């Protein structure tokens, strides 16, 4: 397999095996390989999470069958139950069975949580500071923006939750360097540039790769790749509205994290469908909803 490196592997990448050298944080491909290797270990480490991801691809899957499998992964089940009982789903404290929790959350969200579990993302100590809050804000904002943009709300929610999963993976694999990198950057654009400079790919691209590797529906990683190309390349009108939704949700999350930062031109980005007032409204409403989700996810 070692020679079957992607022909378009990032510039400057080196085949670690051919090189025979040690871990080289300066060579992005090494880090990506490491990330992917970790994902490869997941089936053995979290077989239930892996199976859940596979099962949720089945159009005929039922909540009851999923729940039966979930029972073997207590931490993942607990996280699902907490999330289903969060205020966000309107059923606070009323979801008492795992099948109903799966029903309430929907398969896409179950799959997203399974992926997060499979990737080893747990509580705060294994993810960058504010990671879950930002992810939850992005997810909630994406779901809120889904309707005016006419995209599927549950998918938008899950993409919002998972768009940063690459960041968490980088944080785990290349912890010290990535912490330095985070400290040194002030906004999304500079962070993505720094990531590309160090790893040859941004964390969004890593997220897309993870989703592909776990066989999420192809349009989901494809959406993340469109997001990754922005602002160098603007999403097209046709078929890339989900990416617009996600970018706007990211803008909302960024505004929540840094109210003093420069505002983004959301009207231009959304083709006039979303204005600054809409964003301001979301900035007011989203944090409370997101906080509940964070509590549910991190336990």
């Amino acid at each position, binding site marked *: 397999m070692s020679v*079957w490196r992607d*022909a378009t592997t990032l510039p400057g990448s080196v085949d670690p095996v051919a090189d025979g050298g040690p871990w080289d944080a300066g060579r992005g491909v090494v880090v990506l390989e490491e990330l992917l290797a970790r994902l490869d270990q997941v089936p053995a480490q979290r077989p239930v999470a892996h199976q859940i991801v596979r099962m949720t691809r089945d159009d005929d899957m039922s*909540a009851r069958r999923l729940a039966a499998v979930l029972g073997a992964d207590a931490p993942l089940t607990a996280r699902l139950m907490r999330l289903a009982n969060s205020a966000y789903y*309107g059923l606070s404290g*009323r979801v008492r069975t795992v099948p109903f929790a799966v029903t309430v959350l929907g398969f*896409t969200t179950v799959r997203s949580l399974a992926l997060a579990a499979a990737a080893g993302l747990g509580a705060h100590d294994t993810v960058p500071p504010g990671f879950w809050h930002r992810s939850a804000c992005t997810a909630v904002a994406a*779901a809120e923006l889904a309707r005016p943009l006419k995209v599927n709300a549950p998918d938008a929610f899950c993409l919002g939750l998972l768009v940063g999963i690459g960041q968490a993976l980088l944080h785990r694999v290349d912890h010290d360097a990535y912490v330095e990198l985070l400290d040194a950057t002030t906004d999304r654009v500079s962070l993505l540039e720094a990531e590309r400079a160090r790893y040859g790919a941004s964390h969004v691209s890593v997220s897309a790769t993870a989703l592909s590797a776990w066989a999420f529906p192809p*349009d989901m990683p494809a959406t993340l790749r469109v997001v990754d190309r922005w602002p160098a390349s603007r999403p097209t009108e046709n078929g890339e509205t989900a990416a617009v939704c996600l970018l706007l949700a990211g803008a909302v999350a960024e505004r929540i994290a840094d109210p003093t930062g420069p505002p983004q031109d959301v009207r231009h980005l959304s083709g006039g469908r979303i204005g600054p007032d809409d964003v301001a409204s979301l900035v007011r409403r989203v944090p409370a909803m997101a906080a509940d989700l964070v509590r549910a996810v991190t336990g």
Partner: protein
Amino acid sequence: MSGTDAPPEDCREALQHAAAMSDSALLLVRDGEPPSIAWLNPAAADLLARDTTSAAGVPLAAVLTWSAGAPLLHQVRTQRRPGVLTGADGSAHAVEITAHPVPGQAMWAVTAVPEHDAVGRGRAHAEAAEAAEHRFLALTEQNPVPTVLSDVGMRLAHVNDAFARLTGLPVGSLLGTGWLRLVDPDDLDAVIDCARQALEGTHADVVVGFSTVDGGRRLVHLRLAPAHTPGHGPSFVGTAEDVTERLVFEQQLAYQARHDALTGLPNRAALFEQLQQSLARPTAMAGNGGTPTPTAGAGGPDVAVLFLDLDNFKTINDSLGHDAGDSMLVEVARRLRGAVRDGDVVTRMGGDEFVVVCHGVVDDAEAEVLARRVLDVCTRPLTVNDVLVHPSASMGVARAGAGHGGAQDLLRDADIAMYDAKARGKNRFAVCDERSRDVARDTLQLLADLRVAIDSGQVTVAYQPVVHLGPVPDGDESAPRPLPAVEALARWEHPTRGPVPPTEFVALAEGHQLITSLTAHVLDVACAQMARWREDLGPLAPARLNVNLSALQLGDPRLLGTVTQALERHGVPATGLCLEITESAIMADPVASRDTLVSLRRAGISVAIDDFGVGYSSLAYLQHLPVDHLKIDRSFVAELATGGEGVVAAAVISLARALGLSAVAEGVEEPVQAARLRQLGCELGQGWLWARALTGDELGDWVRARSDRAEPATAEDPS
């Protein structure tokens, strides 16, 4: 993972065949330096413009290039990405490649689907789904019925304008879980349960309260149906119909069906329901140490029933008017509500009857305390239409016992006790005991026997002659004078009890809708006898047959038909019949009575007022009533035998003469009475002085014997 399950040996060839037949291009790639094609199916051979033999061993890189990303051939992970297949003829095919590592072997299964197929299929599906959703949303948008569509859990992805109008809120604020804020907190669990059923694949519905933006409250019938989005899991679609007006109307109807409009108390239907529920409760008697009587309370729940009937209520209605009667009922209801304990239920059975259902009554003593209290508040004076009224009531008390199968049984016992209280003089209460129950049981048996007696002819008719008291009108004393009349009197010889007094069985018939049958029977028998007399006795036959009517029959529209049919059946002329009606029966409703009497008179039937003098006849009414005879009550005739002046008898006779009516004296037993009556100018009389009640044949003999005795005037004048 199911993918590791090995197919049975005998399936391998079938699998190979399936792979060969597949429309998708399939290549098996062997690991090596470089990885090379081990096998390909015909679909792949077509794309590569190679046959399967020449393709074997060709490096994969020679026929396939792919875009950026991780290596295509990964040892443990499936990879998917776009690529280009290059054919031996130089053709290039954009494909979507999926590379699956074959577990346990250094080999991959690579499928290649032409990109336009994959994209086109996906796009076509997406466009079809989008178009369907667009149509669905357009339809719901125009739908006047409020409609909701969920995405996950309780979160709504879509609501239509009608739903927004229902709540008064903009669409945007109702999405997600926004709509749940409007659900009445008490109903939230019901809504969630309804949604849970829909999410689990079952149609469900519930009626719940929704608050509106203007502070109002609407009752909404939420109907949810399951929906399923492949890959996303279950959701629901539903309607939220505003049923406020309908339900409020239904609730009003339901309330009205269970409550008395005048007093607002639960009515008879509600009473039975309440009582059934009370009787179904477990008893607390044992814990309270109560000592049940053998006949009540033993083994039953601690429930007692107070059955209250206002005494003489009809008098209030008749004298002060129905409005006054209604005011009194309302006041009594108010007092009863104030007198009972928490948890006791006051109901109105109908008319002037009230029933109180009391709980936690462990013995008769406790029931009597309650009864006394209730009776006390009911009998306090009250002012109705500026008139001070002293109401009184009779009350029956019954405690639930093992013998009470249901509400009906317990109420029956309370009713029995109430009648017992009435019989003992009213304005008191009585507790249902074995004696009163026996009396009631006996009455029921007698009623059943009476029904049989009427149908089987056990009820017979006796006849008492009515004779002339005055002189012969034309002065021919030698000519035989026909008997002016006979009064038909019903008699019942019970097979085991012997003779039953007419007052007893007539009252029984009146109280249990048998009076019409009884009267029809008597009329038929008497008319038949009258026809026989007319045939047997010729000119000596009684000129007239008197038959008693019950007060209840004055309002019976079938009366005239019953009477005329009996006459026709036996060929008796209408002028040969006189119907006797008591004074009190007529005065109970003079207007209705007059109509009935007029119709009888028009048919040729004469009418007598019976027992005249004991009632309260209005002379103003009397002079307009179409009657022919006044029968002087026997009590006034009796005075004449004891040396009394007979003032009332004289007044009645005088009144009859003044009104052009004939007077008939009843109960004449002594010659002195007959003589005095004759002096007073009374024309007719009846009584034991001449004859007791006789059978038809006996009366025939009596008439013949009377005729055989010479001087009629002497025969009829014992003096």
